[in-house]
């Protein structure tokens, strides 16, 4: 209700569009959707009085002599009559709905009818057409700026001044790689005295540099993994470990090599159906194997297989089409023209894979390099030869056998022990073989060399076990599943059989072609699909500007918010597709705008006009994710390991002293060495016990797809950055790093904030440092704790009290609003 009121109000206030012709898609349809569609919308089962307001013909037709919308005549339109009625039995929406249409919106409805009640489709279902770029005075304006500036001009606003070079370097570095700039990068791109604004060519070099770093893929993979609901455990109560990290590394690689987004989509949805798929194309299909598996005793595998398919349908539509298809699982959608039958037609595409909620997560794909394969083959052959030798029971190895028998050795294996216990004469030939075998394998001194070799070979084989990853694999034709509508979303209440198909409101699939996952994937990224490109560029925009052009980046349907810059969104979507779905190209376009380069300072006037900075009359500023905050602290302090990929790692974490239901301990064994300081992307994700400090900063637990994270600001977050040993360790490392510098405070500021401290900052922090130092001089034991727990002993000869005092100063600087915010 409020979101609609706001968006309509915003449009009126900000654009003054109410005085021009009313736009059905942007101004009228949202009012009807919010207030009327629930009972007078697409869902036939819930439709009241046979009236349908989401369809032009129906709305303008006579319904028992009553016409809802009479073009040109608001007074004769039942729609208006019922809305303004004071009779509680007549008034719409009915009082029990607790909805009231504000007078301004009623006026809009009247004006729209007066103007002829022109109809249109929901804006995001229209095919993407590239709108003309509005003319702006300056030559060589980035088209994005042209759209933004023309809107600002309309609002009698203008861009603010450009941010200085050092702010920009930090902003671009954080946005593109998730890491702060190094001192060398600062020196290169923003040397002392660098001009503001930064020369165009220099700025472009800066952007290209960060787009080319491997850290780029790691940073953007983090966001994709929220959509992919990636986790290193299977979820549900037992939350078993799951080996699927090869998929996470695939995402990083794909992003770093700038795989076109259409290919990125096709490989994840249906890489296995491509002709002779590569290892990578199979690994990519793990996208949809990130659904949870239920291993609780007494549960039905089919019930949870169905749950996984439902999740795949919902996730596919949420990620690519910004559409909550989920509603249509149980009933025809109330607001958007999506029927329950159509839901199960999509379901049918995804209902043919071999996985079935099994504990072993099969089917799995094993990844071995040729080298590894050869190595393992050799070992396997050697093991087989040795096994054969032992099984042959060579006479030479049995010299001590009789003596061993009479020594009555203790034997663990039950059968062998029985054989030994049996009277010698009564032993069966099998029992004799068993005993001899045991003797040569365990005891015979003559076979010692072979025995230890076999052990070593087996150990080596275990060590070189290939990495596996759950993948999508279609069932053989004979085992294909029949798909039926599940009544009210109940997997056991089955209705009509359905075949693969896409909702009629969207473009259709090519005629006469196979309808499988690959066809669905290609449909998602076809040039005619109205949503995928819009939804994807909007998410990029959100990552860089803090808020999407459509604020509800998860919902582009009737109930979502309207785009604040509709033409810009369409231009970007068109450009994205026409560039060959080039992700880095789009990011670069956005980062190169003047809008992006602005200083983020605001003014009271601007805060009042545009509190959420939707119009971008200043630079964007927001609090990044918890993972980035940890990475930033590690990188600035010099602790960060740049090792990429591989199994998940377990950095310092608090002990909760609990186990998961029917499962393992929630507390984990810490990784050793550099694995404690890897990028947060590599931290093990356990759905039942997500890493606590990330959760505190709004990280989801990855049970289901999350399109957009929250951005709260709470005291528990202050606890994390002030006291969490993970962060304290970075403060301690920072103290060690800066103390040897001629001007420690200057270095501390440059590492953390990419700038030198101000005079006031110097005064405040020097005072703190001096006071802390005095304290620690008189309490050396406390100084040791402050400087070394948990980082470890101070370097030989270090002044521990100084280190402790500087740790306290780093604790302050690394909690500054400026450090915690990306500005």
């Amino acid at each position, binding site marked *: 209700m409020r979101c609609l009121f706001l968006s309509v109000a915003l449009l009126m206030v900000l654009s003054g569009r109410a005085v021009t012709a009313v736009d059905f898609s942007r101004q009228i349809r949202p009012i009807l959707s919010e207030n009327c569609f629930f009972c007078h919308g697409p869902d036939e089962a819930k439709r009241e009085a046979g009236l349908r307001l989401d369809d032009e013909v129906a709305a303008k037709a006579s319904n028992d002599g009553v016409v809802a919308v009479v073009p040109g005549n608001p007074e004769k339109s039942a729609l208006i009559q019922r809305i303004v009625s004071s009779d509680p039995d007549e008034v719409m929406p009915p009082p029990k709905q607790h909805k009231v249409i504000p007078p301004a919106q009623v006026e809009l409805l009247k004006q729209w009818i007066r103007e002829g009640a022109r109809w249109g489709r929901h804006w995001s279902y229209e095919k993407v057409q590239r709108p003309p770029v509005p003319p702006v005075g300056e030559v060589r304006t980035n088209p994005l700026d042209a759209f933004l500036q023309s809107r600002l001009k309309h609002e009698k606003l203008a861009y603010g001044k450009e941010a200085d070079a050092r702010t920009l370097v930090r902003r671009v570095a954080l946005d593109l790689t998730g890491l702060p700039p190094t001192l060398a990068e600062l020196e290169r791109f923003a040397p002392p005295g660098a001009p503001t604004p930064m020369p165009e060519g220099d700025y472009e070099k800066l952007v290209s540099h960060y787009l080319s770093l491997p850290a780029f893929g790691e940073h953007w993979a983090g966001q994709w993994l929220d959509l992919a609901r990636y986790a290193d455990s299977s979820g549900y109560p037992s939350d078993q470990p799951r080996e699927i990290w090869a998929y996470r590394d695939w995402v990083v690689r794909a992003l770093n090599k700038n795989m076109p987004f259409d290919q990125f989509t096709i490989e994840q949805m249906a890489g296995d159906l491509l002709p002779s798929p590569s290892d990578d194309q199979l690994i990519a299909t793990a996208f949809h194997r990130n659904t949870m598996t239920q291993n609780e005793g007494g549960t039905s595998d089919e019930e949870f297989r169905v749950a996984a398919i439902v999740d795949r349908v919902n996730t596919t539509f949420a990620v690519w089409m910004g559409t909550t298809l989920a509603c249509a699982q149980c009933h025809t959608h109330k607001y958007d023209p999506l029927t329950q039958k159509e839901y199960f037609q999509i379901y049918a595409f995804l209902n043919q894979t071999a996985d079935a909620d099994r504990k072993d997560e099969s089917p799995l794909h094993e990844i071995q390099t040729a080298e590894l394969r050869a190595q393992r083959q050799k070992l396997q052959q050697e093991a087989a030869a040795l096994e054969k030798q032992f099984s042959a029971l060579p006479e030479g190895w049995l010299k001590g056998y009789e003596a061993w028998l009479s020594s009555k050795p203790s034997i663990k294996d039950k059968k062998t022990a029985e054989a030994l216990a049996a009277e010698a004469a009564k032993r069966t030939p099998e029992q004799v073989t068993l005993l001899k075998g045991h003797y040569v394998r365990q005891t015979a001194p003559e076979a010692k060399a072979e025995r230890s070799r076999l052990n070593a070979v087996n150990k080596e084989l275990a060590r070189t076990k290939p990495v596996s990853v759950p993948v999508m694999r279609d069932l053989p034709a004979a085992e294909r599943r029949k798909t039926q509508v599940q009544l009210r979303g109940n997997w056991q209440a089955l209705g009509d059989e359905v075949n693969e198909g896409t909702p009629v409101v969207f473009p259709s699939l090519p005629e006469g072609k196979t309808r499988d996952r690959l066809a669905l994937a290609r449909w998602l990224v076809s040039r005619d699909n109205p949503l995928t490109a819009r939804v994807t560029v909007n998410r990029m925009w959100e990552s860089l500007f803090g808020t999407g052009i459509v604020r509800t980046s998860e919902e582009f349907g009737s109930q979502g918010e309207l785009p604040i810059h509709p033409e810009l969104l369409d231009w970007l979507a068109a450009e994205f597709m026409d560039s060959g779905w080039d992700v880095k190209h789009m990011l670069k376009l956005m980062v190169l705008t003047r809008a992006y380069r602005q200083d983020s300072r605001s003014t009271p006037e601007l805060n009042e006009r545009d509190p959420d900075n939707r119009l971008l009359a200043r630079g964007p500023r927001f609090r990044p994710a918890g993972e980035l905050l940890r990475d930033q602290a590690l990188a600035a302090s010099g602790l960060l390991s740049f090792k990429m990929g591989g199994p998940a790692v377990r950095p310092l974490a608090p002990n*909760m002293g609990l186990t998961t239901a029917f499962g393992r301990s929630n507390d984990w064994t810490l990784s050793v060495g550099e694995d404690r300081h890897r990028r947060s992307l590599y931290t093990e994700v356990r759905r039942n016990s997500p890493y606590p400090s990330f959760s505190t900063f709004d990280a989801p637990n990855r049970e289901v797809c999350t399109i957009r994270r929250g951005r709260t600001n709470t005291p528990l977050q202050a606890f994390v950055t002030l006291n969490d040993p993970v962060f304290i360790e970075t403060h301690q490392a920072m103290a060690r790093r800066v103390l040897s510098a001629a001007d420690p405070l200057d270095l501390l500021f440059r590492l953390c904030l990419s700038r030198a401290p101000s005079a006031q900052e110097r005064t405040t922090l020097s005072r703190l440092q001096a006071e802390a130092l005095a304290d620690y001089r008189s309490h050396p034991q406390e100084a040791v704790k402050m400087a070394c727990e948990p980082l470890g002993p101070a370097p030989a000869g270090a002044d521990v009290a100084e280190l402790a005092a500087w740790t306290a100063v780093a604790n302050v600087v690394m909690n500054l609003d400026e450090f915690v915010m990306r500005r």
Partner: protein
Amino acid sequence: MNPVRHDSLQLTTRRTFLSGAGQFSLGAIALHALQENAAASLPAAANPMLPRVTHHAAKAKRVIYLHMSGAPPHLDLFDYKPELVKHDGQNCPDSILKGRTFAFTTGVPKLMGTPRTFKRYGQAGMWMSDACPNFHTLADEITMVRSMNTDQFNHAPAELLLFTGHTRQGRPSLGSWATYGLGTENQDLPGFVTLISSGTQPSGGQGLWGSGFIPSVYQGVQCRSKGDPVLYASDPAGMSRNLRRRTLDALRELNEVQAADLGHAETVTRIAQYELAYRMQMSVPEVMDISKEPAGTLEAYGAKPGESSFANNCLLARRLVEKGVRFVQLFDWGWDFHGTSPDSGITDGLTKKMAATDKPVAALIKDLRQRGLLEDTLVIWGGEFGRTPFREGRTAASKVLGRDHYPDCFTLFMAGGGVKAGFDYGSTDELGFSVAEKKVHVHDFQATVMHLLGFNHERFTYRFQGRDYRLTDVHGHVVRDLLA
């Protein structure tokens, strides 16, 4: 729609605040405390945790929810079935088994009457078994709902349904809805606290106290029984309280310069949150320290300072609500009475488990009563479903008696907070296979709890992905008979 129409209020506040050219007031500070994307549904103009106005006067101002994870055997505790005892050992009738599946039982199981002894207690003559002697003393305090009913017979989905209104992950929990609606009465403590005993977290996982798609400020804060009760609330080793104060002073000083320079409300919010954190560092350990409780109180609960137990958690629950925490959620593991081991048998196993349970619960309710808190504190005790009137299939031949999961009927009880005292509600049929009268589905139960907290469950919603979501999904009716 939000319970309160804050739209205009919020816009006014925002305008007044922002036009004040750098003069920030605490009242306006938390404007951005919520995520920006939730602005559409901002529940309050200022601090998201401030106490707020409800749809109607709330009878319960706070909740203590005692959840026995695994499902207590209601037929051996409360729901007395003499007919079942009479038919003990007979084959379960076909009419009941037809077309049904059970978690661990296949074929034809044997009916099992309770081995426990039942008697009537209190003025209402409330049936209870010998397994829970301390509950007998509560008979005049509680409302016993004997006609509870759910849709799910596996633990995780059933717990999710009970606590989030939906069987799959991703929805806000009961406690987060309550905190979202009511805020908290003590800004120096979390509004919603979760305490877990018996070493294992509930099957439904952290979603049972998660905030789903509503802002994460409303999620339950899991307090530990060892180490910092709230994660990272302790200063690092080697930092004195005095130095912490000085570091925070320096931080505030520098952040204030930034706030004035940048003109962003969020910087001011951050300053306030660090100050709040500093106050919480004092208030949290204080409220979580039970060692200063009188010996008599510790004895009554069976609580022992320094240990981790359900008894300690019950005492903590009282201390927390007393200090103004809105919702305290306890989970206790070990209630899955299948009979697969002596501990999960309904004879000795149940006696043992109950011995660590009924005493602290009785002490808690009496303690709240004595302190005048029970009147507006709702206490709930129960599980996620019931247990079968027949013997569990896998353990049918063992010496230990156990029952399988059963969704159609179960029992839970409530006390205080606007529900009747000494009241029996609903019943099951003679053998305990289905609700005989006054069925209360978990959605009805949730609607009733929301009503007691002052909310109309149909109007108490949060907009997400274009839809107004509510705790009760599209179901639920308030059970008015339960209201005092």
